[in-house]
């Protein structure tokens, strides 16, 4: 059956074909038909990816749902797909959030609806491609490919300064990934003319080469995460991007950086990873503390959430480079959870922006009076962003702190400061925007969330609480793959002297 053996291919190509179909279907005159078609594609795609979770074999670290075909045989480039417990949750996250984004754009995007929906659907397919590619060139193809729709989304539907932001975003990420391509080419020759990523796990490399490769990958992934100090494209991109763009950017694109570290740096160059772990941890802790302080003083809500994202991503890289199960699994859960929470917060800002056309904290105040239901939702997501136990935000932070403590007390202490900082910037923003007396007449006349908005906020709320109260199912799918990764990273790949 096509369905059984080609689940990953279907997941990648269905939204891409659906996206092209939506494009073909036409212009703004039949916007509603386009919306419904896009929603149908996104929902079918979500249903299609669910078997990846339900049929997933938790007991093995081997790649599952594999597909392999020759693509360009001269260079032994293959169309090779497969997922393990590290990649699988991200595919579900992607298909879930695309549904949310399609719903959220319903009444908001009125111009070039077809192009907007198509961009997100095509991007969905490409992003799932990134998480399932096992061939380096295929990976690179998806990796660069997904930049194009995102570039267009920011450039066309963005705010006033969208050209600067989109070009900054594009150049930053492109430059980073070029070095990654060089690394792939080098590894191709080392691995005896193979682009199979799994083959790279067994190559012996001396420490200098490992370090160079490490930095080549680092350039690509650190920009994506983004790590301090190559993060400044993110606040600009978020501020200018339309709500849906911000959601996908924060919730999924950033995760590819973290995913890349686990897929390439740790297993392929383990000795360099150990040697440079201090460097990465330092950058991570700077992100956690420095960026949190910067977030505190932002007056633009989207910028604040963008900085908050960078700070939370610091936890992820910290967790990865302490090399224990709690750290890595904590980092992974943190990425998934941040997908829900940052997505939800950007949507919350979007809900207010659609009504008042301002993202400035100072233009709001007392929103709870006119939008009580919305205020309750945003309270939940603000608390989740502060890492409150019982929400998904806590799980990752808790595990990373447990992991970091085993490496060094001070790592855990500095990372733990986020407990105070994240609460400070999130709740302070909440206080100024939501609480207080009605700031002005415009705020007083706001209408509360409508049924469509309640639907997508509730869906996110269910996951934020679900993962917070019972993260076990999510953690269990990771165990085998993370254990395997830890074994790989503990074995030296230096050539025998």
């Amino acid at each position, binding site marked *: 059956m096509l369905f059984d053996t080609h689940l990953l291919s279907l997941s990648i190509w269905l939204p891409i074909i659906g996206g092209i179909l939506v494009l073909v279907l036409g212009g703004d005159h039949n916007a509603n038909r386009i919306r419904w078609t896009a929603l149908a594609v996104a929902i079918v795609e979500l249903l299609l990816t669910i078997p990846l979770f339900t049929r997933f074999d938790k007991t093995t670290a081997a790649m599952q749902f594999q597909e392999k075909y020759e693509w360009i045989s001269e260079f032994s480039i293959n169309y090779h797909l497969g997922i393990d417990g590290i990649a699988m949750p991200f595919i579900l996250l992607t298909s879930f959030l695309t549904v949310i984004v399609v719903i959220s754009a319903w009444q908001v995007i009125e111009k070039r609806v077809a192009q907007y929906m198509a961009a997100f659907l095509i991007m969905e397919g490409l992003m799932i491609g990134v998480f399932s590619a096992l061939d380096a060139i295929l990976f690179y193809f998806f990796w660069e490919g997904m930049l194009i729709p995102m570039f267009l989304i920011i450039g066309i539907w963005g705010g006033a300064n969208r050209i600067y932001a989109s070009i900054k975003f594009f150049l930053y990420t492109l430059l980073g990934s070029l070095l990654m391509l060089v690394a792939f080419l080098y590894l191709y020759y080392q691995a005896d003319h193979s682009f199979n990523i799994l083959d790279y796990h067994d190559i012996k490399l001396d420490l200098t080469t490992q370090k160079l490769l490490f930095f080549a990958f680092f350039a690509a992934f650190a920009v994506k995460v983004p790590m301090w100090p190559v993060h400044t494209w993110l606040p600009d991109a978020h501020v200018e991007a339309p709500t849906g763009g911000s959601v996908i950017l924060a919730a999924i694109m950033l995760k590819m950086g973290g995913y890349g570290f686990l897929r390439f740096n740790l297993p392929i160059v383990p000795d360099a990873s150990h040697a440079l772990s201090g460097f990465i941890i330092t950058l991570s802790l700077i992100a956690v503390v420095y960026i949190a302080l910067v977030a505190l003083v932002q007056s633009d809500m989207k910028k604040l959430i963008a900085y908050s994202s960078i700070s939370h991503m610091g936890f992820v890289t910290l967790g990865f480079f302490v090399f224990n199960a709690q750290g890595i699994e904590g980092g992974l859960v943190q990425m998934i959870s941040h997908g829900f929470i940052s997505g939800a917060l950007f949507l919350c800002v979007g809900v207010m922006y659609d009504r008042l056309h301002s993202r400035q904290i100072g233009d709001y105040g007392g929103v709870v009076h006119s939008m009580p239901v919305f205020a309750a939702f945003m309270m939940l997501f603000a608390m989740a962003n502060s890492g409150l136990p019982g929400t998904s935000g806590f799980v990752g932070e808790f595990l990373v702190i447990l992991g970091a403590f*085993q490496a060094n007390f001070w790592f855990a202490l500095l990372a733990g400061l986020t407990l105070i900082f994240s609460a400070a910037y999130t709740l302070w923003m909440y206080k100024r925007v939501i609480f207080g007396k009605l700031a002005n007449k415009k705020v007083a006349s706001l209408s509360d969330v409508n049924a469509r908005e309640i639907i997508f906020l509730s869906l996110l709320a269910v996951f934020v609480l679900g993962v917070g109260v019972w993260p076990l199912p999510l953690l269990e799918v990771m165990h085998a793959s993370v254990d395997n990764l830890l074994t790989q990273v503990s074995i030296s790949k230096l050539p025998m002297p």
Partner: protein
Amino acid sequence: MITNMQMVYIATPLSCLIPAIVAGLFGWKIGRAMTHTITIAGVALASLLSLIILNDVYSGGFFNGVVYVWGSSGGFPFEIGFLIDKLSAMMMVVVTLVSLMVHIYTIGYMHDDPGYQRFFSYISLFTFAMLMLVMSNNFLQLFFGWEAVGLVSYLLIGFWYDRETAIFANLKAFLVNRVGDLGFLLGIAAVFMYFGTLDYSAVFATAASKQNITMEIIPGQEWALLTVICILLFIGAMGKSAQVPLHVWLPDSMEGPTPISALIHAATMVTAGIFMVARMSPLFELSETALNVVMVIGSLTALLMALVAIVQNDIKRVVAYSTLSQLGYMTVALGASAYSAAIFHLGTHAFFKALLFLAAGSVIIAMHHEQDMRKMGGLKNWMPWTYITAVVGSLALAGIPPFSGFFSKDAIIEAVHASQLPAAGFAYIAVTAGVFITAFYAFRLLFMTFHGKPRMDEHTLRHVKESPMTVTLPLMLLAIPSLGIGAIYMEPMIFGDFFGNSIFVLPEHNVLELVGQSFEGKTGLSLLGSFIYHALHPGPLWLAVAGIVLAWFLYIERPEIPALIKQRLEWIYNILDKKYGFDEFNQFVFAQGARKVGNQLWQKGEVKVIDGFFVNGSARVVSLVSKVIRHVQSGYVYHYAFAMIIGLFLLLTFFLPVKQ
């Protein structure tokens, strides 16, 4: 197989959670009466079940088991589970009973509030979180409950969200608590790293074997692991139980509605830290350093906060500072290894302090939400029930026999007296001086509010009347334990084997046994009798009486004197009035400091250096280079031809010599 008792354990917290969710989500639909009916029914059921559990525990019942596996990592499971022993059963009873009183009281107090349903949802949710906290059998769930009560406290302090002071206070409370929680979380991480489990019983069982392990936090300094763990955990307790210097959130939290002050900020949430240390007694017993730290922090809190209470004029703030001071007493008891005395005081205090808060709330309703005691006076004539119950509460707070506070407080003082730890000397002075001050401010409040001439305006005076039954009934019900439980439970709880195995004390730290022995030997009376007899002699009782007499003299007999004293000792008054400047310091150093640093990092680091210099700088370099190169691309064929010739020439000169 799930036994009947296990069903009861699970049903207890759920009977608070489910009504809370229903009231929160559907309160607007089901209406006010239905909301308070279901939440009160839920809490009443929880109280009943708690009493059943307590009864069961005293006939040998015990439970330590997993409810469900929350998560796992690296082969270590993280579980949600219950530990039902004498300590947790006793805490459950206190929590649910006080909560029940508060629920009933709320019907009257919040009668006109538009957020009625929301309020009931919050307080039921709070009771659930508190139950999960005390019933926990592991550190993770303890932290869950810990943060969850913090969340509800945040929501409740900011309940009136259009008051600027309220939403300032709730943010402050949350952040200060987070400072403590950071310590707590690091403590949990240390436990996990060295014990490999977060389960209480497994950790306690192996604690003794970890006594010689040291940790190097500052290079070159070897600290005992257990000391580090205990101090980190205690930092968490300092946040929640409002110990100096993390006490600053509690007085401000009085911005919330009064029932909250009673439920959360007097009786239950703030005692979580005390409960936690008592629960961790098998760890704290193994670190005398930690015990000394605990005792010093506790005695500082007990003394300093009692002094501040003297100069407060806001009726709720007096009670709030009194709470801080009494929490200090409990902490001192923990430091002296008198855990059961701390828990006993926690219990008696929960009832009499909830009583005082609710009495203050009753006064505030009658005064049309005026809280300044200088505008009260003479209320005993109009509010007899509130007055009588307030007298009971004040006598209990001041520690006059036979009211409950006398027994619990005196036990603490005797325990500190018997303690051999170095900090005990200072602690003893602090807690005995505290007795005098406590009695003074308690009766200052009583005299200023209920005695003397009425000082309110005409309009208020005409409308003063006793509060409705829903308000006074809880007062009367709380007055009973405030009067009675001290004498009844002191002997079994402090000197007996009330807590059994749930509290662990090393023989050389067992001060309560020493205290008990010293009484038994002396007189032919029973232990209870000799305890009172002992207190009558040089004991602190006379200090309390002196405090009351002084309050009477200054506020009834010669009410002009306090103003004179204030004038003469202005600098002392100012220090107390400013509450030692903790707030100003935090505001300036932490709140403004963080914003300043953040602004600098943003303006200088982000905008100027990274974006301005590196990012846009490289863009500028590229555009400069391209400008130069653009001149080369002129479009004239002869330019290109010329360039090609030059290039060829250069290549030849470069490569030709090599070829030779």
